[in-house]
């Protein structure tokens, strides 16, 4: 029987249990990074909140995009995944505030996307597909059974991306 495993703010989930679905609910400006090793059947999902830490912040926290991506890969590799095989998809990073005067100040979503793309590029990890930006929230699911990744927006059906 399928079981949903919620991945909260700043959290990472890694699973090899084919019955599990990893879910980051309602990503707004946050970004979700999903990764899957098709040979080992290992799936992972990061729910990152902020682009990067400021001086004095908790530099190791996985709520930051860069730290989160590194930790996600570390945990998957520990379980036996192979870096070169990882299929990576990204969703989220919306700008939830569209009001003039507010949106620019708060566009953390765009910065989250940019940092994630930069970190992955530096590590020579390719993003296979992404559904990012805009000004709408998304729920991101990773199906451990086959590595399928989906998004759902409010009032819409779940779609594979």
């Amino acid at each position, binding site marked *: 029987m399928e079981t949903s495993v919620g991945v*909260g*703010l*700043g959290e990472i989930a890694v699973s090899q249990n084919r019955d599990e679905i990893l879910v980051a*609910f*309602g*990503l*707004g*400006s*946050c970004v979700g990074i999903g990764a899957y090793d098709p040979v080992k059947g290992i799936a992972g999902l990061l729910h990152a*909140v*902020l682009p990067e830490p*400021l*001086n*004095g*912040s*908790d530099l190791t926290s996985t*709520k930051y995009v860069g730290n989160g991506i590194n930790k996600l890969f570390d945990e998957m590799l520990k379980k036996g995944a192979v870096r070169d095989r990882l299929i990576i998809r990204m969703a989220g990073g*919306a700008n*939830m*505030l*569209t*009001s*003039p*005067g*507010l949106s620019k*100040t*708060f566009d*953390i979503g765009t910065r989250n996307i940019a940092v994630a793309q930069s970190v992955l590029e530096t590590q020579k990890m390719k993003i296979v597909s992404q559904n990012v930006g805009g000004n*709408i*929230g*998304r*729920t991101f699911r990773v199906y451990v059974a086959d590595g399928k990744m989906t998004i*759902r927006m*409010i*009032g819409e059906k779940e779609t594979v991306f």
Partner: protein
Amino acid sequence: MTELRSIFTDEFINLLTKISKEGIENASKGFSGMLGKELTVKSSSAKLIKLLDISKMLGGPEDETVAIYLKTEGSIAGQMMLVMPCEKAFGLVDMIMGEPIGTTTTLGTMEKSALQELGNITGTYFLNYVSDNTGRSVRPTPPAVMVDMCAAILDIVIATAGIENEEVLMFDAEFVQGELSTEIQFWVIPDPKTILAYGAK
């Protein structure tokens, strides 16, 4: 990194509680005035909460939610938000427009504009109280109305307050209007630097 907890003396907490209680009561007067209906402040409090726990303060993360969001400008920085389930927002629009409850079923430009005005008045009444009692100038930005998944909307607060902080101070209140059975959350999240500046005095 700011350490809010370090300045939370009993005296300072009492001051914040007073500001939140009386400011929120003033905000409810603005809200009631616009609706033309009496509104009750069911509860209000000032609390320090972990940033990543904000998302657990409301219902399901995918619930369709409406938020009216304002930022404050001037010598006191912060954020304000009225948060409610979608059906509640429809009811509020009906009241503002003088229509029977149940008339509004979607939020178009006109309906959002009505909610913006409600947020504007509520926020302004709150800030007027704060300004009168602190001698500091403070004003709201134009409000933004969002309709989306609850968790996605809360990302705004989490991302903006959380850049430098693991915890945020939050005043929260529940407004109850007789004809509408569920509550409306009114949140005020002062900028931590502002709170620290006041707390140090």
